[in-house]
């Protein structure tokens, strides 16, 4: 019944205003008076823009009232408009759910990527009082309330979701031991972390300078972990957040030390792949092109100059296309991730999700397409 009602409403709306929702038809008019109003997703007002360190910024946002809140450790998709284009990136929330309940605000903490399009723009491009779009909170990297001790291992800006988790544990009056092992060359949120540590006697934090103690050196980590989870304790849960290589390495060390996999929770953080491939290098490395809908994956060998359209066709797919010359946009397809080079302009995209023209795009690194 409700399904047919929804279908009827959608049909009516589409018939009357060519939009599936009537609100979407009115949105351009309404938003010019109420920029915080939207039909799909959520809007948020920027309350504050601050700098945590040389290359790390924090944004404090107040989402609209329909936003459903979040669990500590989750992230959101933030959409900003840069030079007319709407660009979406995922960012973890570094503030606690309690802060959101008290003030209605959330804080995102973001490292500016050297060659990024979005992150270096945020601090200067956004204005206090302005609006951005955001998604509901998402992500499975949340604290399990199972009454066992917890060890958190963070590296660099990977502290972001963990800070939110730690604050939440303090707010919830966690009584089991909670440890934090924080790697970094500059440690973010030092004072907030110290405040949390002094607030609870069962909380203890270690700041490890990667310059002194090395970068995820197996022995150091193992020694620290033994010290952190001695035999007399119950077996703790581990929460790891940082760059991919750090997670892989720490996960392996934990497994080697006999920790069962269900006790290890982690989230890859930041850009999963190095962004230093030069344009001219495109085609010199082996790349994978994955097609999400057909579950196919193709490996593109060095020197292979085929376009994404040709690669898809070579994989037996038959994407809708037309001119094969970048004119007709029939082959426009959603790229879910990875960088591509436009063969007409030479321009290299960044790694986020966007529409690309298959017939004039070549993969620069591993690319995933909604095909």
């Amino acid at each position, binding site marked *: 019944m409700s399904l047919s009602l929804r279908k009827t409403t959608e049909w009516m709306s589409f018939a009357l205003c060519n939009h599936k929702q009537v609100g979407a038809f009115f949105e351009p008019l309404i938003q010019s008076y109420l920029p915080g109003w939207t039909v799909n997703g959520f809007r948020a007002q920027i309350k504050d823009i601050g700098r945590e360190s040389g290359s790390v910024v924090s944004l404090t946002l107040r989402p609209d009232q329909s936003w459903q809140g979040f669990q500590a450790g989750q992230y959101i998709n933030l959409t900003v408009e840069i030079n007319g284009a709407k660009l979406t990136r995922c960012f973890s929330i570094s503030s606690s759910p309690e802060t959101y309940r008290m003030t209605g605000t959330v804080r995102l903490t973001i490292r500016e990527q050297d060659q990024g399009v979005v992150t270096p723009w945020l601090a200067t491009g956004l204005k206090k009082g302005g609006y951005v779009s955001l998604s509901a909170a998402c992500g499975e990297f949340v604290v399990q309330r199972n009454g066992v001790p917890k060890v958190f291992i963070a590296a660099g800006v990977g502290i972001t979701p963990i800070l939110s988790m730690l604050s939440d544990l303090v707010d919830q009056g966690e009584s089991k031991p909670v440890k934090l092992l924080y790697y970094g060359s500059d440690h973010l949120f030092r004072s907030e972390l110290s405040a949390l540590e002094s607030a609870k006697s069962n909380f203890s934090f270690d700041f490890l300078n990667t310059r002194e103690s090395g970068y995820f050196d197996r022995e150091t980590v193992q020694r620290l972990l033994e010290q952190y989870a001695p035999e007399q304790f119950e077996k703790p849960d581990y929460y790891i957040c940082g760059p991919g290589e750090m997670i892989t390495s720490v996960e392996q060390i934990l497994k080697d030390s006999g920790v069962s996999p269900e006790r290890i929770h982690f989230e890859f953080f930041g850009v999963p792949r190095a962004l230093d491939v030069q344009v001219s290098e495109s085609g010199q490395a082996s790349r994978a092109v994955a097609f999400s809908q057909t579950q196919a994956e193709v490996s593109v060998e060095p020197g292979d100059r085929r376009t994404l359209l040709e690669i898809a066709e070579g994989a037996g797919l038959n994407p809708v296309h037309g001119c094969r010359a970048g004119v007709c*946009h029939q082959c*426009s397809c959603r790229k879910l991730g990875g960088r591509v080079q436009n063969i007409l302009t030479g321009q290299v995209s960044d790694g986020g999700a966007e*529409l690309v023209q298959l017939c004039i795009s070549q993969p620069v690194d591993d690319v995933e397409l909604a095909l």
Partner: protein
Amino acid sequence: MHTLSNEQFDQLAQELDEVKGRVLQRVGQQDADYIRRMIRIQRFSEIFGRISLVLGFLHWSFWIVGVGLLALAKILDNMEIGHNVLHGQYDWMNDPYINSNTFEWDNVCDSQSWKRTHNFEHHTYTNILGKDRDFGYGIFRLTNEYRWKPKNIWQFFSYMTLSILFEWGVAFHELAGRRVFFGKKKEGEKHFVSDQELKSAFYRKSSRQVFKDYIFFPLISGPMFIPVLLGNLTANLIRNLWTSTIIFCGHFTEGVHVFKEEDCANESRGQWYYRQMLGSSNLQGPKWFHILTGHLSCQIEHHLFPDIPAPRYIEVAPDVQRIAAKYGIEYNTGSFWKQYGTVLKRIIRHSFPDRGQPAMAS
């Protein structure tokens, strides 16, 4: 067709690519703001147009204003917004609505069917006889290259009928109605979309439009049923006449060239550019005129660069004209009335068999 050497064609391609590259660097916030402003004006016109039609019971002048605003809304929606968005000119904005894959317009022709045929067939094979079905729409004889048939005698009246029913003509044409409904197929044709899908898209979209303009809005106007229905009909008629006229001026003016399939085999990028320039014609006029034509008044620039935001055509036109002059390529432009006059002349002239012409085109 090849009056230039291969080197000259390559140089031509390079120069035009540079023009495109320069303008693409400037595309950004200004273009996004522009298309959003157009959408706001369109929304405003449609909403107040429909309200004003109902207020016609107070005074007949409200009805007139209503028709005018609704026609303006439909013209902006189809031309400056719809046509250009469906060309992918604003896809870079990543906007969920201002996007060639999702946009739907106030027209009985299903936007995705239109996009499929128009962007590919017409823009790739512009004015190649037998490949570009838009040249004469399979109804009109507009060149000596086609054999005269007795039905061409009344093609001026067919033209007027098509203009009046233009959105229906486009809907039928773009889904290749002859093939889909009457089974006229060419051998070796490959299609991505089945005839059945095309048909259902046609019925789905056109029934929605009929429901909106001739059932829903008249019904909710109660006693104003008939005036509102007539108002919607008139607005659709104005939009049909306007779009038909502008589109005919883009490709069927006197000086527009046509091409044979064999001449265009394996053409280089330069030769493709060359054909686009000779296959299109421009209209001169004030800014509001360009906007109402969806900048198809810059048909030549549109055909060279179909996917740059349309208001930029005005900017690149002087460069294109300079390059055309440099290579001795005709640049067909003129006032609306002058160009439209030659369209009518072309339709009428080819209604009759050519003197001394063999019955079969060479």
